[in-house]
């Protein structure tokens, strides 16, 4: 298990170096994908390596010339990576999320990489609309044809179906790791869980599956004794929380039992129906996953993030909720007051931590987390 995690760590530390090496070795195209709703399956079926573009750890310098400081760290980091030439290796960029800040970043990428196709196919964000299914099917059909144009050959339905099966298998294994950790049979830290999911956004899916099988296979037959305050993590769209934050929570006595982070359960919540024709499977997957992990970027009368969290925290037997909110993330800022009120009404301890690309004073954070865990511990007693 340790070797698999080390491999994941190496990939996560330098995602584009991994992609460049794989391209050099296999000749596969690298397709950058912007989060959070766009599937990787079709790009994989086109023979490419789909890579969800990640925030990196570099301070934002040259990128400042093309993005304002009041944009989220993810968008600022992407712009900075672009301006440093990191994205020169990309053969195309795919995206479809309706996030106003991502739209800006995509335009900046287009302006600075004029020869790199940016395949934008906007997914409907009003999921309960009567035309949502048809519109989503049309979006994926359009993407399919644009990818065929990119690679200069048709994409066979059988290849798309195979990609769907592979990504389903990968998601199932990641969910198994989540379940085993929650049961106490797989001793994984928050940092390690993040590596598992984040590497799944970057790596060749078959290689990822092989390593994940090792990890899941290392589960203990019986749960280990519980220690610490059981904590549920929520939020942090698009970019991974800094691992140091997860470390602080655990060092202060928190035991992260579950989450709905994008670099966590949100990414792996839903499989595609393998019995359906691929476009139909993709469309249903998109419309259904919001019911499994509601997302504030989407308008959906059928789903309530606050209710989902109350339920999820209860099922995980968590003693408290830590909300990780990316500074300047508008959908999360809109929704946070509802979550706060819902948890206040039920007297469930909760803590909001606003994160930034830079300027995360961990000592100050430590004091807040310690206090929060103390409150959660006392309230549970």
């Amino acid at each position: 298990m340790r070797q698999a995690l080390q491999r994941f760590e190496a990939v996560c530390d330098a995602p584009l170096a991994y992609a460049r090496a794989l391209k050099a070795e296999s000749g596969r195209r690298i397709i950058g994908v912007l989060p959070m709703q766009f599937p990787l399956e079709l790009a994989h079926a086109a023979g490419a390596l789909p890579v969800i573009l990640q925030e990196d750890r570099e301070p934002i310098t040259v990128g400042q010339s093309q993005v304002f400081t009041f944009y989220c760290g993810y968008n600022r980091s992407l712009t900075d990576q672009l301006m440093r030439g990191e994205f020169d290796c990309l053969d195309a960029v795919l995206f479809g999320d309706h996030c106003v800040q991502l739209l800006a970043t995509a335009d900046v990428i287009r302006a600075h990489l004029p020869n790199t196709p940016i395949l934008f196919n906007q997914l409907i964000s009003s999921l309960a609309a009567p035309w949502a299914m048809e519109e989503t099917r049309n979006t994926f059909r359009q993407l399919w044809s644009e990818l065929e144009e990119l690679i200069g050959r048709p994409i066979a339905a059988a290849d798309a179906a195979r990609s769907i099966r592979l990504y389903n298998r990968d998601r199932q294994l990641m969910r198994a790791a989540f379940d085993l950790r929650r049961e106490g049979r797989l001793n994984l830290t928050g940092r390690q869980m993040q590596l598992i999911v984040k590497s799944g956004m970057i790596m060749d899916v078959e290689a990822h599956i092989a390593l994940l099988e090792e990890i899941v296979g290392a589960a203990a037959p019986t749960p280990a004794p519980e220690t610490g305050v059981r904590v549920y993590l929520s939020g942090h769209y698009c970019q991974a929380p800094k691992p140091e934050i997860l470390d602080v929570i655990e060092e202060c006595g928190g035991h992260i039992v579950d989450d709905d982070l994008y670099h966590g359960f949100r990414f792996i919540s839903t499989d595609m129906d393998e019995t359906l024709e691929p476009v139909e499977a993709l469309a249903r997957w998109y419309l259904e996953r919001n019911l499994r992990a509601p997302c504030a970027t989407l308008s959906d009368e059928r789903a309530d993030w606050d209710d989902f969290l109350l339920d999820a925290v209860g099922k995980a037997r968590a003693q408290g909720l830590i909300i990780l909110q990316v500074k300047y993330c508008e959908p999360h800022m809109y929704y946070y007051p509802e979550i706060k009120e819902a948890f206040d009404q039920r007297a469930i301890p909760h803590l909001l931590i606003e994160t930034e690309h830079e300027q995360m004073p961990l000592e100050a954070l430590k004091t807040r987390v310690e206090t929060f865990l103390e409150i959660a511990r006392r309230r549970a007693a």
Partner: protein
Amino acid sequence: MTNLIAEAPFKDNPAAPAYGTGERADRLKATRHGGKLVNDYWADLFAAKQEGRKVVWYNGTHIPPFFQAHGLAWVHGEAWSAYLAAKHGEAPAQKAGEARGYDRELCSYARTHLGQAILSIKAAQEGVAGGADDARSLTMAKLPMPDMIVNAYPYCSSGQQWDDMVYRMFGKKIPIFNVSVPLLWGGRKDAGYLSGSEWEERSDYVSKQLRALAAFLEENTGRKFDWDRLSEAMSYIKRAAELRLECFDLCEARPAPATFFDWIASIAHLNFMPGTQAIVDYFQMLRDEIAGRVARGEGAVKNEKYRLFFDGMMNWNRVGWLADKFASVGASVVAGRYTHMAFWQEPGLIDVNDPVRGMAQNYLICPNNHGAPIMIEQINRLCDKFAVDGLVMHVSRPCRGMTNQQFLIADAAKRRGRQSLFFEGDVADDSFYKDELLNTRLEAMIESMDAQRRAA
């Protein structure tokens, strides 16, 4: 206490920086009549419930002709927030929003409108005017509660999330309808302004949703939608929009007879007011006054030396202030993205006998709903048309929708030999605006433009 205005270098124009002439803008007289029309609109809205009319709260593009055709009253959330800001009455709503936890980095239109909803709900529950301890709340207390919510927000994802929150705040009990107005990314080979397969597909898609909107209104009122009334409303709007374009054309004259700030004062009439003869008459008045100024060689800015383009949303707390500031340095802001690339700017697309598709197309071309290449092409076209020397980029802080492409716009301007300056502010939160920063940057820009002329 120090009286800053009395000590300002130009006492008649406190907005003027320490340099320049200190002259104030000569605003069009007809805009006073326009202001009266706007006040009449709000007065009519405040009486809607007493008159038995249902009220729609909506956000986004200019869809009120559908409400007008169906005999409804309507509140444009953004316009309401701008109205409060222009009257310096936005603070109670923003305080209520902040108290619930809405972060200051969220759109200030949204924070104001959500704060209004919080206070309205509280007032309904407790039987007292929301924020009654604050005299500025008196106007807010007049706003009627919604019977329906409609969202039709091009480009900005925040817009849909904001209405979603309003819907949730009212306990999901008020019917909501979302019109998706997708971005015109312009990535296909045949993409162009008002042309290409994406344009045609998106026009069909939004048209289909607008017809469904009419069905939604029927369902929630029990009355049949009157398509003839929609055509009638659109015939007035189309004529008013055509007159506005004629006004714009007249402003190519030197000196420019009207400025961006006159067009800001005339947004409401095409954005959310009813399509009637009154708006046609208003734009005819504007046109006549402008034509008179052109004939007499009168400019809106005395001794016009520079012609500027304004990019970004308006700072509604500072409309007159900014008009006077630019006038005081001989700068005529002759056009803007928010005014000239919005609000039925392509009336020729509208067939009044069957207006839906042309309406959908005008909604699609809102000032930020194009990908950068086509948007910048349109901005360049306007800058050439009005012989612009430089661009003023208003960085409306929590409005990503209008700040998104500003660096690319400035880059493109530079390549065409045009100066640009950036200044921070906001649509409805005055705390983001720093006057002296604008003064300094404006002075630097003017020096650059002078140097450029000397070198030419």
